[in-house]
């Protein structure tokens, strides 16, 4: 069984952290991952930076620009990760836009992921339909779980379809927005969280976008199995050294 699936069987609310590979410095990737695991984070999303991150707000955009300037590429990332499974056990997911993966070659990329021990991918601009028709079997060959997004505007019918194509978890975007642009959750968010929870989907849900502190983490995980923090962690990294990561994680739960 894939590490993501194992993790999802645990009877606990999962804390997942996103960071941009190559930020703040090119070689921070491994240290950040190890530090996050050491502090009890359940799952990590490693952001593969892209020049034009359409679904991201200013914080992740800026970290991506910096990471690219630092020299991050798919090749560099895979090299950095080559021994990661000697020290790290929690699920690792690469989150990136489709074009860099397409240029690497989708199959070559998947193969490399399997080699270094990546468990899944999140590709926001690879629609579920295209995945289903063109790439599903490749992902499966290399044991990778592909994670799809849903939003408050996604119809029930489409959510059912996404659920049927998923085999890990569903990434619930908390509200209609790019990453990082929430200050808290209101009634509208809660109604949406409840609506999805009541759908009894076969895949558990993890909520992301706009989770920034223990309050929003607690609100989100009341309805979902976990929550993902991205922009707030990137902001933390921009003015704290890596060995202070424990401070961030303990502030969440």
């Amino acid at each position, binding site marked *: 069984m894939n590490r993501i699936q194992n993790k999802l069987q645990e009877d606990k609310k999962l804390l997942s952290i996103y960071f941009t590979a190559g930020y703040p410095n090119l070689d921070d990737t491994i240290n950040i991952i190890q530090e996050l695991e050491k502090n009890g984070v359940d799952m990590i999303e490693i952001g593969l930076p892209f020049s034009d991150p359409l679904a991201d707000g200013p914080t992740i955009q800026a970290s991506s620009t910096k990471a690219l300037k630092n020299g991050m590429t798919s090749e560099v990332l895979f090299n950095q990760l080559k021994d990661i499974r000697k020290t790290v056990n929690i699920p690792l997911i690469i989150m990136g836009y489709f074009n860099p993966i397409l240029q690497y070659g989708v199959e070559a990329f998947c193969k490399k992921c399997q080699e270094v021990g990546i468990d899944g991918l999140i590709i926001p601009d690879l629609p579920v339909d295209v995945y289903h028709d063109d790439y599903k079997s490749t992902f499966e060959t290399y044991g990778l779980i592909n994670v799809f997004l849903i939003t408050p*505007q996604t119809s029930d019918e489409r959510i059912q379809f996404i659920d049927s194509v998923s085999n890990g978890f569903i990434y619930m975007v908390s509200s209609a927005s790019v990453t990082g642009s929430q200050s808290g959750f209101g009634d509208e968010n809660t109604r949406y969280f409840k609506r999805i929870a009541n759908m009894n989907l076969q895949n558990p849900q993890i909520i992301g976008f706009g989770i920034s502190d223990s309050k929003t983490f607690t609100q989100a995980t009341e309805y979902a199995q976990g929550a993902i923090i991205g922009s707030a962690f990137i902001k933390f990294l921009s003015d704290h050294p890596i060995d202070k990561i424990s401070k961030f994680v303990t502030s969440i739960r």
Partner: protein
Amino acid sequence: MNYNVNEKGYYGEFGGAFIPEMLYPNVEELRQKYLSVMAEPDFIKEFNQLLKDYVGRPSPLYYAKRLSKKYNTKIYLKREDLNHTGAHKINNTIGQILMAKRLGKTRIIAETGAGQHGVATATVCALMGLECIVYMGEIDIARQAPNVARMKMLGAKVVPALSGSRTLKDATNEAIRDWINNPVNTHYIIGSAIGPHPYPDMVTRFQSVISEEIKWQLKEQEGTENPDYVVACIGGGSNAAGTYYHFLHEQDVKIIAVEAAGLGVDSGESAATSVLGKEGIIHGCKTLLMQTKDGQITEPYSISAGLDYPGVGPMHAHLAKTGRAEFMAITDDEAMTAGLELCQLEGIIPAIETSHALAIFEQRTFKPDDVIVVSLSGRGDKDLDTYIKYFKL
């Protein structure tokens, strides 16, 4: 060979809708409805009426006598520069604002490079009384100041795009992010034949009035509907798509697409996508795209803001790949010279984008009896600053 879009939204291998899930409901609604809305009699009536009474169509097809004499061939200019707001862009914004109204949208967003599409969008929003927000790269705001002022006078809010190269690509990113943040009440009026399906096809259909008119106008003047060549400059490719549309499947009509070579195709400062680009994904569609080996989109360069885009519409990628169109790349200097020449031979000051299309006559010889229709996509008023600096006027 089919050069139109297929049911899945592809032109050959190019096109599709590579969009984040957040955009799916809006794009899907548009995909399901655009053809039926465009076929409604009252839509057609309103669209045609506005094109006639408000835009001033049909735009003349003008036989450029002195230009033809100089190059010893027969050159017709399709005068999109005479449209209200000064370019072809308004054909599309009229169509899309009517579409937006029928979809019940109340807030309009757009990206703009040269500012022509921004002005055309601000104009139709004023006409319909809808809120308008235009994203424009910070660099373009500086080099197209008159159009920024126009948009403001028309009641639009102009928001600078501060990321990346701060030009058209980045303005488009910002517009897409706005749409993600406002998924219910907002329609995004894309300004070129780019973006996720159905945009390239929808924009092409709204612009196809250009070639529809060329056919009967040429018949009147030359006794034949089909020229030997149709020529247009390509940023994202909307004036080109409209100019080619009704000739795509007429094999005796040759198609020339003119891209901006900037300082030269191999200079590192260029926007000649068909030469420098490789298949990839930009702004939701698979097309030819200027990018690094690692798949990062690179920053194009052209003296003309409207051609300063690292991709081309998927239809044009298909025309390039299949060889249906001949692609030419024109440098800043060649374009500027051709622009000035048109002023002096024909008394028409063209947009710098358009000047690229006019520059092919110095590069390539045509037969004396060849009939060549060039899309005069826009007028040069917005570019006076650039012309003044360049020619030290």
